[in-house]
């Protein structure tokens, strides 16, 4: 009679390519990234970082109601996006806007969604950062945690039927692995031989819950085997490692038609969202350490710099330009009209049913009677 121990002797090792100083680690196998891709990756990471800063500030100034940053996880966002193709369908949690950015979502489009104006693809019907774009193969974000994981099997099923050379990429955080949907989603994908790439951004915190209180296992990577799913742990702050891992995992998922689980270790440098102040539950110097010494941008920049592909001048020019574009995008988005009243009732069903038609009429009558109580900047 032999019990399997609750913990292995050693923790599962973590795949890394670059050291903290940006030097390739001796003995680490990786596929070279060409200059064009590397520069695009770096520029996108910078754009994401600045976008997060500026939108966060905009919320603090009361110009948007809510925002959620991906600070500290830029490498996971961008390197993953770079390793996929535009046919791969993304089922995000909410800290993956970098993928949209990589796929060509403009700063103006991000701003429009956050301001909920008439140009927002969601027509003002979802809260800020809950982006969605079917033309970018990016499912509309839904706030409840992990609900997208069982849906991933369904999307994969759809791709299987179409025999497409693409996979589904479903994200979750460390906290999301506690949800029932995580168990169900992974089990389903395994049983159905669904081509899903599950990526868990283990950033150490679920609002105020640290991973030590989230699970007792050795992180998330060990959970894969319980479902019969191949898994790997990667340093999420190492853009090259993430890029290589996702490339390899994607190949496996598509050609073997089975799911793969990737645990990307990182740190949530920002607060959970604008409704949170993380200094209340974690030490400030811990945050500072990850913000500076373990910064994914700095690490990748060192490598790109060393290859002679990036200069300091280009850096300041880029940062200045992005900042200007963002401020402009915010101005434009802020001034743009909000969606008209009719949008409140549209898209509930494919056509407007009679009861909603009545309710809309009733609302319009109320507004007409009490025009002074109705906000003047919202078009009727």
């Amino acid at each position, binding site marked *: 009679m032999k019990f399997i121990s609750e913990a292995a002797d050693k923790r599962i090792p973590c795949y890394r390519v670059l050291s903290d100083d940006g030097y390739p680690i001796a003995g680490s196998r990786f596929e070279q990234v060409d200059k064009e891709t590397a520069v695009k990756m770096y520029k996108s990471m910078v754009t994401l970082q600045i976008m997060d800063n500026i939108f966060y500030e905009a919320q603090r100034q009361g110009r948007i109601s809510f925002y959620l940053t991906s600070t500290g996880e830029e490498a996971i966002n961008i390197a993953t996006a770079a390793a996929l193709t535009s046919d791969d*369908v993304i*089922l995000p949690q909410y800290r993956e806007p970098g993928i949209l950015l990589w796929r060509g979502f403009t700063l103006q489009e991000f701003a429009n969604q956050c301001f909920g104006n008439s140009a*927002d*693809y*969601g*027509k003002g*019907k*979802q809260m800020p950062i*809950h982006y*969605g*774009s*079917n033309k970018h193969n990016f*499912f*509309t974000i*839904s706030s*409840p945690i992990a*609900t*997208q*994981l*069982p*849906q*991933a*099997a*369904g*999307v994969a*099923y*759809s*791709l*299987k*039927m179409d025999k497409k050379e693409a996979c589904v990429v479903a994200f979750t955080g460390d906290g999301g692995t506690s949800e*029932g*949907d995580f*168990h*169900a*989603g992974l*089990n*389903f994908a395994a*049983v*159905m031989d669904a081509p899903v790439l599950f990526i868990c951004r283990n950033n150490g915190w679920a609002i105020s819950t640290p991973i030590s209180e989230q699970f007792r296992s050795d992180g998330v990577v060990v959970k894969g085997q319980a479902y019969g799913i191949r898994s790997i742990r990667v340093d999420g702050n190492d853009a090259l490692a993430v890029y290589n891992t996702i490339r390899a995992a994607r190949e496996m998922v598509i050609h073997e038609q089975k799911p793969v689980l990737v645990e990307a270790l990182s740190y949530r440098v920002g607060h959970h969202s604008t409704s949170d102040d993380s200094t209340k539950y974690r030490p400030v110097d811990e945050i500072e350490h990850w913000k500076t010494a373990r910064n994914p941008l700095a690490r990748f920049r060192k490598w790109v710099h060393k290859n002679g592909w990036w200069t300091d001048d280009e850096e300041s020019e880029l940062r200045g330009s992005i900042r200007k574009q963002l401020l402009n995008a915010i101005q434009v988005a802020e001034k743009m009209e909000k969606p008209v009243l009719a949008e409140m009732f*549209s*898209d*509930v*069903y*494919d*056509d407007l*049913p*009679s*009861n909603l*038609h009545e309710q809309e009429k009733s609302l319009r009558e109320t507004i007409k009677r009490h025009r002074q109580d109705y906000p003047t900047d919202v078009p009727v």
Partner: protein
Amino acid sequence: MAAVTQGLGATAALSSANSEKFQLTTRRSLSGRKGRFFIFESNGNPRSGLNRQINRTRQFFTNAVATKPDSAAASTLSKHGHELLLFEALREGLEEEMDRDPYVCVMGEDVGHYGGSYKVTKGLADKYGDLRVLDTPIAENSFTGMAIGAAMTGLRPVVEGMNMGFLLLAFNQISNNCGMLHYTSGGQFKIPVVIRGPGGVGRQLGAEHSQRLESYFQSIPGIQMVACSTPYNAKGLMKAAIRSENPVILFEHVLLYNLKERIPDEEYVLNLEEAEMVRPGEHITILTYSRMRYHVMQAAKTLVNKGYDPEVIDIRSLKPFDLYTIGNSVKKTHRVVIVEECMRTGGIGASLTASINENFHDYLDAPIVCLSSQDVPTPYAASLEEWTVVQPAQIVAAVEQLCQ
């Protein structure tokens, strides 16, 4: 006003221990074009608000499903058509839609080679393969979520809940995603799923297997709900639900699967938002759906013998209510009795009462009477269980009292 009439043939005693078996003989007059397709409407007039649905059903003429070649001529179907049981009618509807559209697929527990707990999907896995008729592990939230994901990428899944009660586990996916994602994505993603399964009070199945989920789901914006009660409307509603671009929940009843009826050979699709006129009358409007229709019709027999003329409407569409048909009836009879299996608090009857009061208050000569189950979990003991369900005698008494 009614173009659909039904007379009840012999009815089995409702308190028999085995599942009910009714022989229904039907005669219908039709509105529809010549040719092999018949579109059934309960009156021939187009209506505002529901117009679009009726117009949509007319478009189905062009998508032919081959039927028996010699059945074209008949305009009344009393001699033609074929007999089948309700669960077979559901299967027939599902099969026809799967033939017609390769994107229609089925998922659920034991729906594949086992054929489903109530045999609705029997034989489909052999015909369409394991990919289109998918057996899933036991995780309702999962396979409902899976269906939603598949629907968002172009498939048209039909999800079977082994028992409606288990779909409470899928409530999160149904409420937060199914009903919502079309809206929050600004119309970019649509979710044409059908969620179906048996519910209602059966024969000593215990409280957890006797749930009436229509109560809990009725508030969710973005979904539609229909309840079938005869083989004829089961097939028609199944087809309509599959073709709808909106998520539809189709409520079946555990005790109605073995109902036998003769249905047309020709293809037909019913309107999801329409109620069914079961028995036109003048004195009082009785609104019901699903299994209670049969209790009502039995009560109607007694009432007719006593000299009353009840109008019985099977509301069929639980969300939204067919207030057009219901309203016309109320305007005619001025008295309403609602007979449902839901519990008193927060059931379909409660909503329907509010709706009728709001819209047709001036036409009512008396307060609406709603007969529902009590606010108790369904007990196991047969006698206790019987008392939680509205019985014909109660319906007769309520009508008599209302018509005084």
